[in-house]
């Protein structure tokens, strides 16, 4: 074996554009900017900008929905099942409520629950994943088995089951989604921890007698922040996905509330009668929000993984 593993240009000769010179040793000033640079790169991506615009539109709707909507979203009127027109942009539903106002007001529920659920799920998942990955051995075997069992079931199904049992308040939905995301996040974090655990800085910490919690939270955790941030953004997208699916299935906030999923589920019964607007507009609202969140997640991911 000759002079070991010196990273020469050969190691970066693979034709990947962004990574080509990344491993070389650039000037210090350049390195110092790396983090700021990442953030700048993320901000400049078109998908990040588009995603943000859409998300912020919905956030504004969620915060000031009552002031923005032309009508009261809960107000019944005689003009039922009106098709979209200048008066009712998105038409009216079976009790004559304005669909546009209901779509605007419907942003609130999902934007209240989904991000919180994702954050909670990631916090639990990170803790579980750190324990599984670092402490390892028997404990990891047992926990992995349980995580695997959870993963083999569709999230929606267990959530539905849990919510029908526990009742469908916002808090229950939030808690259930968070708990169900925990094993998914834990699996990602565990893999990241396993890659760190055998690095020499961990050995060095053990050699100077650091405690296990110190090594997990102070030594390893900061180094896996990249995958955790990516996981968080991705999870927010899935939380929107899950929460709206649950409310569509009747496991969301109770009926009068103008939740998008619930609106779709009210609307599709009358679809065959040709009344498409009560279904289509809330459905598009859901689609726009999940796509927007995922666009943001995707741009964060591609920049963080390239660096």
């Amino acid at each position: 074996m000759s002079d070991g593993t010196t990273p020469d240009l050969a190691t970066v000769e693979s034709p990947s554009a962004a990574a080509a010179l990344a491993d070389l040793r650039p000037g210090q000033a350049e390195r110092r900017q790396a983090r700021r640079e990442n953030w700048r790169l993320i901000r400049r991506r078109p998908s990040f900008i588009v995603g943000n615009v859409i998300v912020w539109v919905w956030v504004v709707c969620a915060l000031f929905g009552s002031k923005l909507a032309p009508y009261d979203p809960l107000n019944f009127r005689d003009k039922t099942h009106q098709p979209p027109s200048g008066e009712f942009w998105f038409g009216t539903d079976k009790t004559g409520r304005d669909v546009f106002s209901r779509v605007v007001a419907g942003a609130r529920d999902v934007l209240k629950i989904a991000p919180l659920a994702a954050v909670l799920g990631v916090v639990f998942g990170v803790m579980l994943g750190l324990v599984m990955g670092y402490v390892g051995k028997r404990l990891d075997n047992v926990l992995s088995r349980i995580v695997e069992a959870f993963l083999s079931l569709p999230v929606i199904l267990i959530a539905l089951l849990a919510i029908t049992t526990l009742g469908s308040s916002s808090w229950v939905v939030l808690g259930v989604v968070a708990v169900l995301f925990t094993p998914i996040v834990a699996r990602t974090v565990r893999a990241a921890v396993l890659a760190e655990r055998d690095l020499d800085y961990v050995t060095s910490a053990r050699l100077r007698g650091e405690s296990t919690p110190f090594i997990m939270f102070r030594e390893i955790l900061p180094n896996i922040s990249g995958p955790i941030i990516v996981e968080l953004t991705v999870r927010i997208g899935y939380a929107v996905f899950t929460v709206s699916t649950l409310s569509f299935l009747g496991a969301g906030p109770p009926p009068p509330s103008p939740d998008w999923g619930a609106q779709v589920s009210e609307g599709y019964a009358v679809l065959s009668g040709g009344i498409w607007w009560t279904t289509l507009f809330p459905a598009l609202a859901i689609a726009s929000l999940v796509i927007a969140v995922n666009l943001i997640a995707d741009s964060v991911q591609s920049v963080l993984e390239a660096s």
Partner: protein
Amino acid sequence: MSRFLLKRLFSAIVTLWLLATIVFAIVNVLPGNIGRKILGPFAPEAEVIAFNQRLGTDRPLLEQYLRSMRNIVTLDFGDSFLTGQRVLDQVLPALGRSGKIALLAFLITIPISVVAGIIAARRQDKLTDRAIVNVGLASSSIPEFVTAAVLVSVFCVHWQLGKAFANPPDGTSLVGQLRYLLAPAVAMAITYFGYLARMTRAGVITALHSDYARTATMKGLSRRQVMRRHILRNALAPTITVISVQIGYLFGGIIGVERVFNYPGLGSLMWNAAKARDVPLLQGAVLLVGIIYMLSTLIADLVIAALNPRIRLEQM
């Protein structure tokens, strides 16, 4: 090989046991009166007590748990609380109906998304690639029921191109059934397109940047030869894994799609059972989903082993 299968079988049994326990635990986490729930608030108290007695839902939880485990071990999942019918007689036909949609969805989505993924990888960072990646991102982020609802409102209602109700009448011919099943299958196919295309793309890109692809190019092979002989075999393993995992998740998405199309498949059945807290029916359905998931991941592992000699020779 047999050692590998034995290990998998053992872990499958443990996982199934955990699944059954999870379902039992969730349903019973709050004290509730099953009889009251099923018979409704206006049923006379005596009738509810009798009902609970008949089903055994008045027994201590531990006893109920052991009984449900015994039912599972004997592969007789017991009778539905709701209808009193044998669980298997309800679950299996529903699975068959859902299976038709799922199969159709995969037949549509696998070839399209694998080809799209390969094209995107070959045109990495070009316009085609960006388009495929972003369409894939959008398609996989939208919940299935939303896609289904949009499909129904636009194609079935507005343009009258398909049936808004998916359940074909009995005795419909195979081609006739397609007219009913196509819309829900497309709704699911759209969701899976995103995952599969992006995974295929990533796999192909990794393989394109590998040292062995470089060796192949330097040998003087053409791009097409490098792709066919060296890239695809190595690149498709992650895609196969994703497909197998998707088969499990499919039953999450299928609930929404079946609700939109009023289709009496496994998804609708699970929805009804969950609403009614019909424990035996739910356990039966959930375990079935679990078994399907495990079978599909097992098959995927075997296919990957067949493609990758290292896994085949060292782990089996």
